[in-house]
């Protein structure tokens, strides 16, 4: 049964020190900035954070890193023009990095939510990111064995929820939200709008409520910082 939190702080209050936290978003799109701000405020530390990037500018994930709360980042593209707080912590040896090709990141998260024990993927074969991993040749092609990525919590931003927790997203802000919602023990979602049950067309619901534990309404989400320059 989904709970509806009154504030973002209430929604993330249960996240303990040492937790593994998935954070949705691809750069600014879909980044649950208010939930991350609340996590900064909660004081939880020694976190392992799974996100495509490693923060932009000074707010959101960048602020969490800057505050020294992140022990380890699992991501595909940490280095960006404005990823200064991650860069500093990484160069100072204060943050661990597990670099994962983006498709493997998405699929490892999906596998966790789908109960898959591991999978063989062609991505990364013959590269430094496959070193030490099991390789298998199937029908003449080489594959790398990759394991699921699970989390204690997922923090996701969606466009709308109904009061049961069914979610719809907006444009490319969908990105990692649906797979992260399924891969975490507890999924917390910030939405711009909560509508009554039955108000969302069942044909267009992207994340069914079974994956959602807590929603919080954040009417006008602050915009995540726009990256200066590019990055995947």
């Amino acid at each position, binding site marked *: 049964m989904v709970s509806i939190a009154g504030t973002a702080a209430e929604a993330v209050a249960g996240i303990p020190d040492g937790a593994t936290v998935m954070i949705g978003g691809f750069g600014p799109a879909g980044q649950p900035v208010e939930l991350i701000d609340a996590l900064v405020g909660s004081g939880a530390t020694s976190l392992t954070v799974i996100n495509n990037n490693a923060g932009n500018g000074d707010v959101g994930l960048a602020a969490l890193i800057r505050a020294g709360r992140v022990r380890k980042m699992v991501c595909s593209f940490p280095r960006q023009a404005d990823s200064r707080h991650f860069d500093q912590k990484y160069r100072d040896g204060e943050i661990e990095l597990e670099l994962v090709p983006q498709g493997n990141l998405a699929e490892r998260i999906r596998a966790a939510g789908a109960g898959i024990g591991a999978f063989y993927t062609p991505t990364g074969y*013959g590269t430094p990111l496959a070193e030490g991993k099991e390789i298998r040749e199937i029908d003449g092609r080489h594959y790398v064995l990759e394991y699921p990525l699970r989390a204690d919590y997922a923090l996701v931003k969606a466009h709308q929820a109904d009061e049961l927790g069914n979610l719809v997203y907006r444009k490319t802000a969908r990105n990692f939200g649906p797979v992260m919602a399924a891969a975490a023990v507890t999924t917390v979602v910030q939405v711009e709008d909560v509508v009554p049950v039955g108000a969302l067309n069942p044909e267009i619901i992207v994340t069914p409520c079974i994956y959602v534990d807590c929603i919080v309404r954040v009417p006008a989400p602050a915009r995540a910082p726009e990256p200066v320059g*590019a990055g995947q």
Partner: protein
Amino acid sequence: MKTRTAATTPRGLSKDGLAARIAHDIPRGAFVNLGIGLPTGISNHLTPDSGVMLHTENGMLGMGPEAPGNAADLDLINAGKVPVTELPGASYFHHADSFAMMRGGHLDVCVLGAYQVSARGDIANWHTGRPGDIPAVGGAMDLAIGAKETFVMMNLLSRDGAPKLVPRCTYPLTGVGCVSRVYTDLAVFLIGDEGVTVQDMFGCTFDELADLLEVTLLDRTRQGSR
């Protein structure tokens, strides 16, 4: 008076000229992913009647041009995190579906930038390997091996004049044996079982290319040394 030859001034194609050339070679109706950096410019040369549909790794087919500043929507961005637009017929999907689309061989063409490409089609484009450089791979490894055809768009020589089409990559690899064509400012190369074939040259001769590179070249231009 002696005419200056291509050997002394190998001018080649401009970035925009090269982008136009690649756009011309993309089949009508193809599903295409353009990597960040140089390849993004190819979209400026794809006309609506080409029927080409652009994929962006962050979950969209039918991506349109960059959004004008006043219409920027941070929920609608491309892989380089630049605000873009949607074309009629566009669709959105989550990240695992987006990369399944890629890895599953559904995209016809992807075009990537590169530090180096080897004579057997290996590509290196994600990490310099220099100590102190923070590695970042993004979707490069998935893109390199996923599409039916992987094209590379790059200058043939690095800023310090070193060839980027090489017998073996010295930078850390992105993908193995996956590049089928290399579009450069000086020539177009096809990579196949028979080796590296020069398909087209821009302001230089086959012999000049052969001098520049340590890779054995086959000549398909039928222009020989001009």
